[in-house]
Each structure stands twice: as C-alpha cells, then as structure tokens.
C-alpha cells in the first residue's frame, strides 16, 4: 500500500456487498433487490448471505440460530458480558449502550469469541494436519505443548458442559450431525479426557459450523451476535430493579494490597 492506494479510493468505495440508492430508494444486497426480491428472506438468511455471499438451507440456518440459543444466551447477570449489560441497565444507561459495551466485551479470552474462533481454527488445522498424515494424538500434543491449552476444551466455572447434548440433539434433528469437523471435535475430547479438559460447547458448535463450509472469518461474524438475547434480557431485567442495586459493594470489600498510607 502506498499513497496511490488512498488517491485511488478518494470518494471511491468499490464493493460487492451492496448499496442503498439515495436517488430511487433501491436497496441491493449482493445484486438482489433486498426490499422486493428478497422479501421472504429470514433475518438469519440475510445475515449469512451478506457475510458469505452464499445461501444456506433452512436446516443450516436453523442450526446456526439454534447454536446461538443453546450456547450463548444465558439469563444470568453474573456472567461477565451479561453483567456489563445488567450493570448498564441498573445504572440507567441506555439499552443500546448496554448492548454495545457487552458485545464488545464478548471478544473475550476465557469465554466468548476467542474460544469460539480458536476452536473453529483448531479443528480446521487439525483436519488439515491429519489429512497431511499427522496423527490426531501428535497434533493435540503439540498444541498443548506450544499453547498450553486447546480452545473449546476446559471451562472456567463448570467443567461439565450442559450444552453438549442439546447441541448434538439439534444437529441430529436437522440431519446435520456426523460431519468430519464435528467428529474430530469428539475424537479430540476422547484424547483429552484424561487431562480434565472437558469438551465445551464452543468445540462442538465450531465443528458443526465448519461442516457447513464456513471459514473462520465468517464464523466469527456469525457468532458476534450469539450472546445478544441474554445480554438484552439481563439489561432489561436489571433496568426494572431499583437503580444501583445490582451487586453493591461495601468499602470494606476492596481488599487492598498496595503501599501503606503515605504523604505526597
């Protein structure tokens, strides 16, 4: 990239996504008239078509939406991103600011987006490695050695993941169970069983979605809104409680370990 790149793009944004015409009100999404030709598009269908440029079957779309519900929208204000939403509601911020802040926080490391992307990426790399002749055992061992953990395996608060069975049940019901990445996620769980790294829903969800042909970049965009129902629920609930009452802390609950009192 050079100065010429900027000059080329001055008042010029070429795109394959779409546009909204100020002149005639036409709205085009990837070449299709969004307001007329795509009027029967479901919201999830539109989201995935806009992200990928590809259309998915109704079963696949139901899988994506079902995984959102199962994996990420707990009505639990103690969970960290939900807590941000709830604190905002209880501190009488706007619902929009609450949601924006909480979604941003969901780009997290011990939960949320990083484990989800990480699990997806891990399964894709594992499949490629096994396709290249490496054993799954040796691939897993190297990951543990280099990174000291594998996204999608292990969980910060509760080691057994109650979401695995519903996720599998959903995929079976839709006829989308048994793809290579999902199978791989189960095989990895078997390898890690002795290490107290129980499989969590991020691994199985990643496997199921990888089997639908998504890339890791596409998967990240799909999962961005996975938490939103729980976030909105927690915000709204907290907004109906008396203001400032969510987890109040006494001064004495600050456990201070810094320098002793001193003069400036």
């Amino acid at each position, binding site marked *: 990239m050079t100065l010429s790149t900027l000059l080329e793009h001055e008042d010029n944004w070429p795109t394959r996504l779409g546009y909204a015409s100020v002149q005639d009100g036409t709205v085009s999404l990837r070449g299709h008239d969004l307001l007329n030709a795509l009027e029967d598009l479901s919201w999830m269908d539109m989201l995935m078509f806009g992200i990928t440029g590809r259309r998915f079957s109704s079963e696949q779309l139901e899988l994506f939406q079902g995984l959102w519900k199962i994996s990420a929208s707990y009505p639990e204000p103690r969970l960290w991103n939900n807590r941000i939403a709830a604190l905002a509601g209880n501190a009488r911020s706007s619902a929009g*600011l609450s949601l924006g802040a909480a979604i941003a926080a969901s780009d997290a490391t011990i939960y949320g987006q990083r484990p989800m992307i990480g699990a997806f990426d891990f399964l894709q790399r594992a499949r490629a490695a096994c396709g290249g002749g490496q054993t799954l055992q040796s691939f897993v061992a190297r990951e543990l050695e280099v990174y000291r953990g594998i996204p999608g395996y292990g969980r910060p608060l509760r080691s057994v993941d109650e979401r695995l069975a519903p996720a599998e049940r959903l995929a079976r019901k839709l006829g989308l169970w048994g793809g290579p990445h999902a199978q791989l996620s189960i095989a990895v769980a078997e390898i890690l069983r002795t290490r107290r790294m129980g499989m969590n829903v991020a691994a199985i969800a990643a496997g199921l979605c990888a089997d639908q042909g998504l890339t890791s970049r596409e998967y*990240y965009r799909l999962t961005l809104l996975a938490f939103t129902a729980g976030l909105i629920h927690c915000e709204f609930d907290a907004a109906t409680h008396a203001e400032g009452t969510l987890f109040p802390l006494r001064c004495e609950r600050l456990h201070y*370990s810094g320098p002793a009192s001193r003069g400036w």
Partner: protein
Amino acid sequence: MTSDAAPRQEVIRTSIWQEEPEPDNPFAAAVCRCRGYDVYGELLGKASFIEYLCLLFLGERPTQVQAKLLEILAIALANPGPRDASVHAAMSAGVGGSPAASALMAALGVGAGGLGGGREVRVAMEAWEQLGCNLSDWEAFLRHPPHAERADIWPEMEHAPGFDPHAVRCATPVAQTLDTLAACGAGPHLPWLAGQRLTLESAAGAPLAMSGVAAATCRDLGLSAEQGEMLYLLLRLPGAAVHALEQAQLGFKRFPFFHGAVKYVGQQPDNE
C-alpha cells in the same frame, strides 16, 4: 427461590485503591487512597493530572522526566484530527444525534485496531520488549514480520507495526513529536528510535507513524504492552469528544455523506 450456592463475601483485590467508609454508610467512602496517597484529602490541589495519571499506571509518583514525557505524549495524541478514522467514527455518532458515550465508544472501537490504533501500539511494544534496541533484530523483524499460526479476533497486521503504510515520508507532526520526546532525557528507546529512524523505515518499507512514537514513549515510561495499549486508547479520546460535539451542532447536512462514492462492482441486480 433457587440458588447454586450460599452467598459469601467475595472481595475485589486491588493494589491501586483503598477506601475507608463513612461512619454512617458502609457503601460510601470517606477516604480514598490511590497507591497509598489520600486522593481527596491531599492530592487535590497538589498533584497535576499527568502526575496522577502516572501514579495510576506506574504505581509511583513520576520522576520529572516521566511526567514530562507523558505530558508531551498526551498533547500529541489528544486530537488525531477529524480525518482520523477514530474521530471520523465519533463525528458520525455525533452528527446522528447519538449519545455522548456512543461517540467515545465509536472512537475506541475504530481506534483500537492494527492501523494506527491501540492494537498497533501493543504489537509494536511487544516487539520492543523482544528486540530492545538491537538494530539487526529490528531490521529482520520489520522485513519479515512473524505470522500468527492461530486465528484470533484481531486480523493479522498488514504492515510493520508502528509504521504508516500509506505515507510517503514521515509526517511532520510525527517527526516533531519524536524529536521533542527524544530530547526529554528519557531513554533508551526514544533516542535510539530517533537515531535509527531512517534505517528502520527502510526495513519497514514505510515511514514511522505516531503509533510507533507512542509505543517507544510508553516503553520509556516503563509501561507494559498492555498498559501502553490502554493508555494510548485513553489519550486519544479528547479530540474525538470535541469533534463529535462540534459536528452534532453543525448537523448532518454539513457533514460528508460521500455521495456517489459507493460503487457496486458485484453481480448486477436481477430482474426478480
């Protein structure tokens, strides 16, 4: 009522902040100490804002050189100007009548990334931590930046961290900021960067950017990469705030909409 465990008195652990409650209200603080200093009983009126900021980040009262460095950096970063993407985002919030917080959140979100944002400062600081002031190591790093094996929320850096992929030469304000900071008597990173700038720019294939100057300054302040990223995000907000307020007053009709700029180059609209 269901509950998964009996309530217990959990605490927030901190080495930064200590409070003593008012005698009649355990939820209100009568005394607040920051790293041992009584903020409202003593610091107010004695410490400058920059000194207090140093105390918060560094844990100790700053030296004169540290305070000077941070003051210069704070002024240099305070307003990236309305053409900067983070300020552009804040103005877009302002012009649409969005809440004040959304303007700052927009500036933070847009200004957090790998091009001129907090992420770039952090990556550059991590490079400083690994490479120090070793010129040959820096040249090798800039010519062949390492690639992450695993996918992450952050996209891969598309240019050498701390350098401006679009610039023709080091921008005058960047050079002026570096010269001023390097003359403060701090070190070793800023003077070394000033001395090796042209060599490093050659290896990077791009001129030094303000993010690169900020990264070196944060290193000389003794900050970690994580602290530098956070401070950089914080210091760039004042400009975003005032430009958002200004454009909110002027209104959307006097703010660029980029009429005619979006050109559809994909599949042609069908006749459905």
